[in-house]
């Protein structure tokens, strides 16, 4: 069924390395957890890099048939260009988060095991395994299990600090996520009932534009939207993402919400090509546009830094949904431009948002609070963190030469080329609003310290540098030549070619 050259065990390793690593951590406990992390993080990065290199070099999808049982009876894993890019970005952000979190979550020597370090490191690896399973999954039910893995890793991370507010945020997040899972599951069973397979490639060949496909796709999309926190199902996100400890927020905002978004794209572009029609695409993008405007305006009104950043995630996730009308239309090259722009937005937001939450975490640690009104003088105390925040902000605003700029520019270009100018207006307005909320924070940080400025706690220089490096990553993404656009197309054709057989 598949040519030998594309068989590779690497996707399995991408899932199983962090998954078994997580089990091992729980088994050994105590100080060994950090040592294991020290081994597993680079190893996982190496696997991701190997997959990226293999897909790049060979130019087609890597496939692994688990247990040798071909779909539809068995489960296959597929790493196409998009999966490879997602895996690499995930690995880089996870490793950076690990470096950032190292001093915060370390076990003291010769004392009983502490709660937070053990839980944090195991959850970090579990999130990694789940995200890798989501991006290489090719079976709708296997993807359901992967999504649940992601949820069950993310929820305790929200509640990690143990504050009552965060427990409540975690519970609300869990309830939203469970409703989303159920909705997704109904769609899955309907598709299986109609077409007798759960495999995405087989499904894309069998699916017909008929009512049951529509119903299934809608239910699955609604479920995934609840997990992605697209407006109007975004209510759970700000308290959850703001309540987690800084490294947790970084991973949640940068990566976890993207996992379910990735599946929405998989569903409409890979599993059910040709089913995406204008009305559905415009509706999704319309919700995205509402999220951009509403999220940005709410971000402007926040008095706390972490909540501001969390609302900014609501807004930035909105941009991703512009991919549906812009890349879904069959008008080359505009749709390819939009496709590249959409994914670049995802990647640059991942870097920018991770950096922002890291910087905000350091600022909160130094001040003992994160009230925006009382940030005065922090630029002098923590110049590196402030710079990291500002650089990440540039990418969110879409200022050249950042990755966010290129992404938004490509989306803008695509919408103008296709005559869908209203999305262009939203993109520009969103950029202006993002500029406003970033400038409020930076302006306050640059202001002189107030008379009642509290003394600041010392902050690790190493962690500041990690935040800055991640922010630089967001900027540098804008300088990468547009070659990745070709990578992002790898496998899209493969799936269709497979479908044709």
């Amino acid at each position: 069924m598949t040519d030998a050259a594309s068989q590779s065990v690497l996707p399995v390793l991408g899932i199983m390395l962090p998954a078994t690593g997580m089990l091992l951590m729980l088994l050994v406990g105590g100080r060994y957890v950090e040592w294991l992390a020290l081994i597993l993080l680079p190893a996982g990065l190496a696997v991701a890099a190997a997959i990226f290199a293999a897909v790049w070099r060979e130019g087609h999808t890597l496939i692994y048939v688990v247990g040798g049982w071909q779909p539809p009876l068995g489960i296959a894993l597929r790493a196409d260009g998009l999966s490879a890019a997602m895996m690499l970005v995930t690995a880089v952000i996870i490793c950076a988060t690990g470096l950032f979190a190292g001093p915060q979550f370390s076990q003291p020597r010769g004392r009983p095991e502490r709660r937070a370090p053990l839980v944090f490191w195991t959850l970090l690896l579990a999130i990694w395994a789940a995200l890798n399973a989501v991006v290489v999954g090719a079976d709708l039910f296997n993807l359901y299990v992967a999504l649940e893995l992601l949820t069950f890793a993310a929820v305790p991370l929200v509640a990690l600090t143990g504050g009552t507010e965060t427990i409540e945020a975690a519970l609300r997040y869990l309830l939203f996520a469970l409703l989303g899972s159920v909705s997704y599951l109904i769609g899955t069973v309907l598709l299986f009932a109609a077409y007798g397979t759960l495999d995405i490639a087989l499904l894309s060949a069998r699916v017909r534009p008929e009512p049951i496909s529509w119903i299934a796709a809608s239910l699955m999309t609604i479920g995934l939207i609840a997990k992605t926190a697209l407006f109007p199902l975004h209510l759970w996100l700000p308290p959850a993402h703001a309540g987690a400890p800084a490294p947790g927020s970084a991973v949640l905002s940068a990566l976890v919400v993207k996992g379910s978004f990735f599946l929405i794209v998989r569903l409409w572009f890979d599993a059910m090509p040709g089913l995406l029609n204008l009305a559905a695409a415009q509706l999704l993008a319309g919700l995205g546009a509402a999220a951009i405007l509403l999220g940005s305006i709410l971000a402007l009104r926040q008095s706390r830094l972490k909540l501001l950043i969390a609302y900014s995630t609501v807004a930035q996730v909105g941009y991703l949904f512009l991919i549906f009308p812009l890349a879904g239309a069959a008008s080359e090259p505009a749709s390819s431009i939009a496709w590249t722009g959409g994914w670049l937005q995802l990647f640059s937001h991942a870097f920018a948002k991770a950096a922002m939450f890291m910087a905000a975490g350091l600022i909160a640690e130094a001040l003992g609070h994160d009230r925006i009104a009382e940030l005065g003088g922090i630029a002098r105390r923590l110049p590196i963190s402030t710079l990291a925040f500002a650089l990440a902000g540039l990418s969110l605003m879409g200022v050249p030469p950042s990755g966010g700029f290129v992404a938004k520019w490509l989306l803008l270009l695509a919408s103008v080329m296709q005559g869908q100018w209203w999305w262009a207006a939203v993109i520009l307005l969103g950029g202006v609003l993002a500029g406003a909320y970033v400038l409020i924070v930076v302006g306050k940080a640059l202001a002189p310290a107030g008379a009642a400025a509290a003394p600041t706690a010392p902050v690790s220089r190493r962690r500041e540098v990690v935040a800055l490096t991640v922010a630089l990553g967001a900027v540098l993404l804008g300088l990468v030549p547009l070659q990745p656009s070709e990578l992002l197309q790898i496998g899209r054709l493969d799936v269709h070619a497979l479908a044709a057989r």
Partner: protein
Amino acid sequence: MTSALAFDLALAALVLAIATLTIAAREAMSAVISFIAYGLLLSLAWVRLRAPDVALTEAAIGAGVTGLLLLGAAATIGDRQAGAAPPLALMLAAGLACALVASGLAATTLVLLPEPAPTLAPPAMASLATTGLGNPVTAVLFVYRALDTLLEKVVLVLALLGVWSLAPDRVWGGVARLGPDAPPRAMLVFLAQLLPPVGMVIAIYMFWTGADHPGGAFQGGAILAAMWLIVLTARLADMPATSHPGLRLLVLAGPMLFAAIGFAGWALADAFLAYPEGYAKPLIILAEAGLTLSIAATLACLVAGPATRTPPP
């Protein structure tokens, strides 16, 4: 045929009536009790749908262990927590929306599903001989779609970690509280002395027979968990501390063994989670044995909840 139809109708009506009771019940405790009855009746529906494996799982986990968990929560919280019910207009709107959803789904399943229905039963049965198993559901769980099962075990461990992580920092690694603080009644102790040996035999039978007949690791594990919980509630054994290396090993051994068998398949049988020819059945039974123990420990720990007392010195 008509008597079967009448039975199905009565069963479905009863299931729906009890579900309505569960949703509409005034007190949390009555809702939970009717939920357990609902789960048991539902497992009869699964028998009628010719899915005895699912019926056992629903009865053991869906009704049994979930019910136990919810009973504990309802006993602790009661109805003291009640927030205000939404206004009537909102209730009506929600009711209308849910009725629409239900009728839409009913119409979808009754009208839109294709005839003849697509099925994977023929390929699943055709390959059954190569696995050496007699129960096709076990074959799907441990051979064809073993990756799902493996990841789902990780989900279960992760849920336990999530529950444990809710312990306050000062009691981390401590002991969970199970049941009331009062000393156990003599009758309970008597039950805990007599029932577990029988239960263990049934659990082992359930896991062992799963290869060829309805049953398996989940159902056996759930029964084992229930037996352990009875023993712990009767204070015949101490609840182990969540930091106890033995407990952690017990929880993790099954998933790790299964993963190890998966990797061994990669080395010896050309594919991750493939079994070498002729060794499929013994390896699956080995994995299931480990998983039965781990599932039992995990389910029991999930019911017991996070630590509330400091670890013993």
